[in-house]
C-alpha cells in the first residue's frame, strides 16, 4: 500500500525538515519579524485618524489581525510552538507532494532505486526551493508585517500560478520529450512576465519617513534571511525525502501490510 508508506514517511520527513526550518528561522527571520512589529505597535498607538484610515485601506484584512477579540498565540514559547507546528504541517504537505512526484518519476525512468542517492536528494530539494520559494519570491518577495500589499486573493492566485507554472517548467526540462521540452523554459518565465500584483506607491507609505526608511532596510534584510532559512529547509526536505523514497521503492524496505509482492508472471497474466 504505497499511499500508507508515503504518508508515514511524509510525517517523518515533515517533522525533521520542519524542525530544521524552525531552528534556521530563530537565527534571523523571527527576530526581524519581531523588530517590524515594534513599529506596528507604535503606529497603532498614534491617534492620527487619517493614518489609521490609510492603514486599514492598505491592509485590507487588518481588522481581523489587530482586533482585540481574535485569538493569537502569546509571544515567547507559545508563539514559537505554533510556528513549529505550522512549519512541520507545511513540511508534511510539501513532503507528500514531492515524494509522490519522485515515485511517479521513478516509474517514468524505470531506474527506481539507484535514482535516489543523496545527490538526487539535493537536486530535488533545490527544485522544491525553486518551485515553492524562489519563483514566487521573484514576484512577491517575503514581506515583513506592515508592508503595503495588493489584494490578498490576487497575490495568492499569482503565488499558485507561479508555483504550478514553474513546477511544470522544471518537470518539462527534466522529463519532457523534445517538443514539450522546448516549451519548458517558457513555463518558467510566464509567471514573471505576467508579473505579481503590487500595491501602488511606497511600501511603508503609512509610516513616518524615518520609520519607513528603517522598515525598508529591515524588509531588504528579511528577503535574504528567508532565502537562507528556506534553502536549509528544502535541502533537508529533499535529502530526507530521497532516503524515504529509496526505502519505499527498494524490495527490502517494501514491507507492505498486504503481503509480499506478487511474482511477475501472475501480475502479467492478470492484465
Amino acid at each position, binding site marked *: 500500500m504505497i499511499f500508507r508508506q508515503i504518508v508515514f514517511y511524509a510525517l517523518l520527513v515533515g517533522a525533521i525538515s520542519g524542525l530544521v526550518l524552525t531552528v534556521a528561522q530563530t537565527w534571523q527571520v523571527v527576530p526581524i519579524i519581531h523588530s517590524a512589529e515594534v513599529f506596528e505597535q507604535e503606529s497603532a498607538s498614534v491617534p492620527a485618524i487619517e493614518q489609521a484610515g490609510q492603514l486599514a485601506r492598505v491592509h485590507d484584512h487588518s481588522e481581523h489581525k489587530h482586533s482585540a477579540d481574535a485569538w493569537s498565540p502569546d509571544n515567547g514559547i507559545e508563539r514559537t510552538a505554533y510556528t513549529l507546528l505550522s512549519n512541520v504541517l507545511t513540511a508534511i504537505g510539501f513532503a507528500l507532494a514531492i515524494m509522490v512526484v519522485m515515485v511517479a518519476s521513478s516509474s517514468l525512468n524505470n531506474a527506481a532505486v539507484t535514482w535516489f542517492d543523496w545527490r538526487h536528494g539535493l537536486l530535488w530539494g533545490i527544485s522544491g526551493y525553486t518551485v515553492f520559494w524562489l519563483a514566487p519570491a521573484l514576484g512577491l518577495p517575503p514581506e515583513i508585517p506592515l508592508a503595503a500589499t495588493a489584494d490578498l486573493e490576487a497575490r495568492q492566485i499569482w503565488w499558485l500560478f507561479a508555483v504550478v507554472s514553474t513546477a511544470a517548467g522544471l518537470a518539462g526540462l527534466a522529463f519532457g520529450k523534445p517538443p514539450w521540452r522546448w516549451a519548458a523554459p517558457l513555463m518558467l518565465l510566464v509567471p514573471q512576465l505576467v508579473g505579481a500584483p503590487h500595491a501602488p506607491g511606497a511600501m511603508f507609505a503609512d509610516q513616518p519617513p524615518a520609520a519607513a526608511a528603517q522598515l525598508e532596510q529591515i524588509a531588504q534584510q528579511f528577503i535574504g534571511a528567508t532565502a537562507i532559512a528556506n534553502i536549509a529547509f528544502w535541502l533537508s526536505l529533499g535529502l530526507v525525502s530521497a532516503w524515504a523514497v529509496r526505502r519505499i521503492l527498494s524490495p527490502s524496505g517494501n514491507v507492505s501490510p498486504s503481503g509480499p509482492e506478487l511474482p511477475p508472471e*501472475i501480475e502479467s497474466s492478470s492484465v
Partner: protein
Amino acid sequence: MQNQTSTVTTVRKASISTRISKPLQLIGAFVLGAVIVYAAGFVSTSAVHNAAHDMRHSQGFPCH
C-alpha cells in the same frame, strides 16, 4: 486443487486492484499534501492566520 484455483483467483483480483489503484493512491497522497499546505498557508480565518503567521511570512506565502 479447487482451493488452489480460488487462491490464484484471489491473488489475481488483489493484483488487479493494486495495479489499478497505484496511480490513484499517488493522486490521493498528492491531494492530501496540497490540502495540508493550503490549510497552513492560505486559510485566512483569523485563528489559523495568527497561529501560522510567522511561518507564512518566512515561507513567502502571501499573508496580509
